[in-house]
């Protein structure tokens, strides 16, 4: 095997636990060179795990001075080490991009020597891509915790998105498996970049050609299921980070056991908590796009999400007083709370009902999940019913007649979490 190919094998493998793959949200246009990151993101292919491949996601090196138990590149782990040169990363990125394999580069790194040394090397790569190769594709760069503000500020001028991972949802969890790290070193650079974005926005009225600075915003990632946090704890942290740092995304990454030496972590061979991860993403969506408040879905009395049903259905079943909703009169915000009706269908319903009251046969064609929604809504020809249906029965019949992708596959060890 060619040496570059071997490096790619090692450094792609080490980078793959970072789940962010987004290539959308930037405003960068092609100005006399190659590449354009101004359109919506594109997934160029999907791996056999069903995850999208949008960016060339690699580490500059997997040499690392830290020994975080959950990380595959931890100092004490016996794995092959490698490091790309600046030129090699640029060469591969450009050649992949020109063949339409990727939307751009996702560059991260283990920490070698110190934070600034690492950050400076990452910066040289993105600078070379932008200035020498005139590359206008998407670049997602990891901010190295502890790097100097000058370096972070300069890097921000070349990249589309920056991110730093929280790793574990709580400080206590982090201390268990990565005593050398803390949440403060994540908050500080996130706040720094966010403040700088805001500063530029407020200045923009005065400056004619304002520079692009992290135009696709920031994101973070939490590892789920490595340490015993509840869903409520996890989502509280996410909610706070969305509010305080205006993050574009929080990613939840079900922990894949890769460490058999640490007794605190799930052992190698344990199934990653994929359903739980999915339920957390669904909750995340409800908070960001469906106008739910966190305490409606999770609160100190209800700390963990149902595994057998999605969080919107779960909320509906716990709040029967909200239903049924008349789709011919209710407003948009009420309609999107009906299980089985999404945002697009809700918009269609609002538009279509101007032409006359909607009936069952029309709703079935509009693209809603009628068999689920029917328990929570009424339309023009809904039969008149006396009294309320027991929500217990509703859940039973949805589970019985629905075809959830998780039907019969929810393993015992995922029902009760710890």
């Amino acid at each position: 095997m060619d040496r570059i190919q071997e490096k790619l094998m090692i450094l792609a493998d080490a980078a793959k636990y970072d789940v962010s793959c987004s290539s959308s949200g930037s405003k960068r246009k092609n100005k006399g060179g190659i590449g354009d990151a101004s359109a919506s993101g594109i997934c160029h292919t999907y791996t056999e795990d069903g995850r999208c491949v949008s960016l060339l996601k690699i580490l500059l090196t997997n040499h690392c001075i830290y020994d975080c138990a959950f990380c595959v590149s931890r100092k004490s782990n016996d794995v092959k080490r490698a490091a790309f040169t600046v030129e090699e990363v640029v060469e591969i990125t450009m050649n992949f991009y020109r063949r339409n394999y990727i939307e751009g580069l996702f560059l991260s790194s283990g920490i070698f020597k110190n934070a600034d040394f690492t950050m400076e090397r990452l910066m040289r790569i993105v600078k070379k891509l932008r200035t020498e190769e005139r590359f206008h594709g998407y670049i997602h760069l990891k901010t190295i915790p502890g790097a100097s503000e000058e370096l972070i500020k300069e890097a921000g001028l070349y990249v589309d998105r920056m991110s730093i991972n929280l790793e574990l949802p709580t400080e206590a969890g982090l201390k268990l498996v990565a005593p050398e790290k803390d949440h403060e070193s994540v908050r500080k650079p996130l706040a720094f970049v966010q403040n700088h974005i805001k500063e530029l926005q407020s200045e923009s009225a005065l400056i004619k050609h304002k520079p692009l600075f992290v135009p696709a915003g920031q994101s973070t990632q939490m590892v789920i299921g490595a340490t015993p946090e509840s869903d409520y704890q996890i989502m509280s942290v996410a909610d706070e980070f969305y509010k305080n740092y205006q993050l574009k995304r929080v990613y939840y990454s079900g922990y894949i056991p890769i460490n058999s030496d640490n007794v605190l972590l799930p052992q190698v061979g344990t199934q990653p908590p994929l359903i739980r991860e999915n339920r957390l993403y669904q909750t995340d969506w409800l908070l960001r796009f469906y106008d739910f408040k966190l305490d409606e879905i999770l609160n100190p009395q209800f700390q963990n999400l149902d595994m057998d049903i999605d969080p919107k259905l779960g909320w509906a079943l716990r709040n029967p007083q909200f239903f049924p909703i008349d789709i011919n009169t209710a407003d948009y915000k009420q309609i999107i709370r009906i299980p089985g009706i999404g945002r697009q269908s809700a918009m269609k319903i609002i538009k279509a009902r101007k032409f006359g009251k909607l009936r069952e046969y029309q709703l079935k064609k509009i693209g809603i999940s009628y068999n689920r929604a029917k328990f929570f809504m009424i339309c023009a020809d809904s039969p008149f019913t006396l009294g309320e249906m027991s929500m217990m029965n509703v859940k039973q019949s949805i589970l019985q007649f629905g075809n959830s992708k998780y039907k019969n596959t929810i393993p015992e060890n995922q029902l009760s979490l710890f």
Partner: protein
Amino acid sequence: MVYYIYDGSYIGFLTAVFDCFDLKDKAVKVVTKEQYSPSFFDEGFEIISDSVKAKRVLNGLNKKLKKAQVNDFYCVFLSEDLQAVQYTFDLICELFRQGADILENYGDEKVVYFAKTLKSVGREKHRMKAFVRFKKATDGMYFAIIDPDFNVLPLIFRFFKNRYADQRWLIYDVKRNYGLMYTLQQIVEVKLLPLEKQALATTEVIAFDEDEVYYQNLWKQYYQSTNIEARRNMKLHLQYVPKRYWKYLVEK
């Protein structure tokens, strides 16, 4: 029932809309020459494509709708689906008679079918932006073959022109036997002769750059290394990358 027989082009289709109003015909079916079979009971009327008439229909649409909505008709037309093309024709006629908001009537069968087709074409258009794989030829030209479900090449070439502005490229639709080539100055339509097309399928008619196979191998390596075996989910994988697209994907 009157059959309007047009040449299959969008200009011809829009001319048919114009003539329909001009001749005050009701109950019109639009068909191409290939789709038309004369019958004893129905009348057939040949539409002569006329870019002035087509332009007038487009101007009319632009007055009533947003630019993107006007483009939606073209997208659905490119689906090459007989039913969808007919509904597009009916909806354009109806909206000239009744007003633009009829397109929001999602309780109507035609509108729903139109919206559904628009979504399918949009999905295929997006897939082609993702799944095109260029191979670099010795002369520096980047070359790709596609075989899309719908005729989406007219919808994607601007995207590639913006993105790959500093490299020459050619994307060839083997199903519809035409391609678009970017020469650094302009986009030109390319048509291979039947013999050339045959050669395309069997042997390499193009000499590839010496680095081409090297980067293909690197890409295959990356594709394998970035996969997480513990999360294997083939059902989802196939949903996103249906098998019919595999033949032109380097990594599959």
